[in-house]
């Protein structure tokens, strides 16, 4: 039996995932607003046979304080769908996953946008469904403020169903018949009529059917309702975990939920994040990591940590002391817990924790040689902690370039990553079932 193969996503971000990446001497500081930079990154990922590239999103600036915002490259970014539409026509195989919020868009517009991305890419689109947990985003859309966690997910459930119905409402060959009778074939179009609590949708999607049936659904839910939504609707889940045990627990948990929805284990790919810092020797890798860590301004690191902990002002506490006790958050509960556990486990002060966290926002960081990194990935892949990984290079393009030229061949040599793409759609490459086909 041939060994199963891991899936790889390249989580792209302007100059790099490390919060201070843009300040690195090698960094291209204008990367975040340069489309050619992103096209080049996507092409590197495609050369490395990555399943997909992934673009995160927030519909707001990420810091309330202008002073802090002005020190972070992540304050501005391309809107993900327009970014991926441009990349779509400059790549041929790599999947294109954009984040979009169910809280601040409507199902029809979103379904139509992802259908367009799917057409432009020949079936490589994916939607990372998020419910948006920040106050700053809420304030860009209404005076009423952030909805509660359960309200957000209630809306997300109805939203996902409406989007799926719109995509499924158009069959193959619905438009432009050869018999010249009509532009569209009524028998292949299934108008959607949904009148729910949050949305009212009446009509037909303005797009031919997706070349992959419908776009791939991605989710990163970590709460109970979030994991249930993923188990019901997603093809891929992203997650952040530090230790192998945490990753295994998450993996087992989401897979155990699939049965409820009549789905098998192969229907959902679990892809935790990994931030690889690659050196020819372990020493070189460590030096690379230190060079980046030294560029983090304390205020920026602490503010980032505070935002994930949902603490108004962490700098009010002694930076060299431990985290204060805090109540559970309405925002991202899992990441808060991860930080608290990490602090306790390794006995880190606020300053140390902030620095550690700023490297990859709580994702698993592996500092070492290509062999060491491949070993670490293989171990988690083999031990039921992951179906693949979302690779978060600390610096772009060099971190991704190094991964593709040094780590990918090592994974291929071990037979745990593809040599060639299986097909041209994201669904085919991920190996998940096409809706409406068995």
């Amino acid at each position: 039996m041939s060994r199963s193969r891991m899936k790889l996503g390249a989580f792209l971000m302007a100059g790099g995932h490390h919060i201070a990446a843009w300040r690195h001497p090698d960094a291209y500081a204008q990367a975040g607003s340069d489309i050619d930079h992103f096209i080049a990154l996507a092409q590197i990922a495609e050369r490395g046979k990555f399943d997909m590239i992934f673009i995160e999103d927030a519909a707001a600036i990420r810091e309330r304080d202008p002073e802090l915002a002005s020190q972070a490259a992540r304050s501005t970014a391309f809107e993900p769908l327009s970014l991926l539409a441009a990349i779509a026509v400059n790549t041929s195989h790599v999947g294109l996953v954009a984040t979009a919020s169910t809280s601040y868009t409507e199902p029809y517009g979103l379904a139509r946008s992802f259908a367009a991305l799917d057409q432009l890419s020949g079936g490589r689109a994916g939607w990372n469904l998020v419910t948006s947990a920040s106050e700053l985003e809420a304030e860009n859309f209404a005076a009423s403020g952030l909805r509660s966690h359960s309200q957000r997910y209630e809306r997300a459930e109805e939203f996902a169903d409406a989007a799926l119905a719109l995509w499924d409402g158009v069959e193959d060959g619905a438009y432009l018949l050869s018999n010249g009778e009509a532009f569209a074939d009524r028998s292949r179009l299934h108008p959607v009529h949904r009148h729910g609590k949050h949305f009212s949708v009446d009509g037909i999607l303005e797009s031919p059917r997706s070349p992959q049936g419908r776009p791939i659904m991605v989710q990163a839910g970590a709460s109970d309702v979030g994991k249930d939504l993923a188990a019901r609707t997603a093809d891929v889940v992203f997650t952040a975990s530090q230790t192998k045990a945490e990753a295994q627990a998450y993996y087992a948990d989401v897979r155990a939920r699939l049965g409820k929805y009549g789905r098998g284990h192969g229907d959902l790919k679990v892809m935790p994040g990994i931030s690889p810092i690659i050196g020819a020797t372990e020493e070189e890798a460590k030096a690379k990591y230190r060079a980046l860590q030294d560029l983090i301004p304390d205020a920026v690191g602490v503010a980032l940590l505070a935002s994930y902990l949902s603490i108004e002002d962490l700098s009010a506490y002694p930076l060299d002391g431990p985290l204060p006790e805090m109540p559970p958050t309405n925002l991202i509960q899992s990441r808060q817990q991860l930080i608290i556990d990490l602090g306790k486990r390794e006995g880190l002060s606020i300053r140390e924790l902030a620095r550690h966290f700023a490297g990859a926002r709580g994702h698993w960081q592996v500092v070492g040689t290509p062999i060491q990194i491949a070993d670490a990935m293989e171990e988690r892949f083999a031990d039921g902690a992951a179906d693949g990984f979302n690779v978060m290079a600390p610096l772009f393009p060099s971190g991704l370039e190094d991964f593709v030229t040094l780590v990918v061949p090592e994974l291929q040599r071990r037979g745990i990553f593809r040599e060639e793409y299986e097909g041209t759609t994201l669904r085919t490459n991920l190996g998940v079932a096409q809706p409406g086909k068995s």
Partner: protein
Amino acid sequence: MLLGYALSPFGHHPDAWRQARDGRLLGFDALLDQVSAAETAGFDFVLLADRVGLRPVDDLSSVAVPFEPTLLASALATRVKRIGIVAAAVTAQHEPYNLARRFASLDLITKGRAGWMVVADGADAAREREYVDVVKTLWDSFEDDAFVYDKVAGRFFDPSKMHIAHHSRTHFSVRGPLNVNRSPQGRPVMAHLLDGGNDTLAFETGELLLLQARAAEDLVRTAGRTIKAIESAGRRREDIRILASIGPVIASAAQDMNERLELSGEDRTAQPLLATRLLGTPRMIVDQLQELKAVADLDGFTILPPTLEMGQRFVADVVPEFRQRGLINDGSDATLRDRLRLARPVHPAVSLREVSR
């Protein structure tokens, strides 16, 4: 003379798809071929129109573009390098923050060649005016020189040049700032299709006004009314570009076009665009356009080829005639604003500082 090319997979005649019968025409490559041809010919912009709302259940007609215009625009942007790209987006379908981001991104991706064709359904004029105001304010979130990228000081942008909207009026509550860099054109160009209904928003805020009428006489009248309306809105004629939509039927083909297409009178209410049909030889068409431009005080025309073949003929036979008369802009203008000879907007904070100085 300014020239726009209205994209459609088969041509703008409602029955044009019957001639085509090729599904590939709905795909990106075929659309790109049309836009590349328009770019090479010297067109100033391509127009990606859209209808308002979702496809009605009982409407099975072909439409202007087969998929969402702003994303098509983004994809085209990386493959054609000079022509401007004006994409339609409906105010009722996007939150202002999302729309402002989409077009700010598009302006970065096109490197300053993006335009927004504002599609408002006219149902609530006050809401739409507020919508456009919010979008413009968000586009002004950063001044032209806000981004300093100072690695040593750890300063990505100058916070004194960031402006938080804090918009809170009747219809929208938007904090801001926009989380996208300043647009290369200052702000994307704002275009409107005038439909003779409530065009107040266009008169007050539009920069590129696209007129449409069935007959040339109506066009002259509409242009006159438009110019009066923008002036009574307190704006100057020279700050606005006015183009008329034309459906050219080029001679020799004119006859069989009529035979092939006039026969069926399919309802075209679902089509987003309407054009004045002009018939004749290439030279006659250019004569008519020149005369119309002078009589109606227009800046140019948006061409809506009734069929793909007519689009190709326009490029092959009519454009050289324009060129011979020195009417085509072959300059090396980088941005759509430059091509349209529209001034770059001065950031409000900058004009304020200049006033108080």
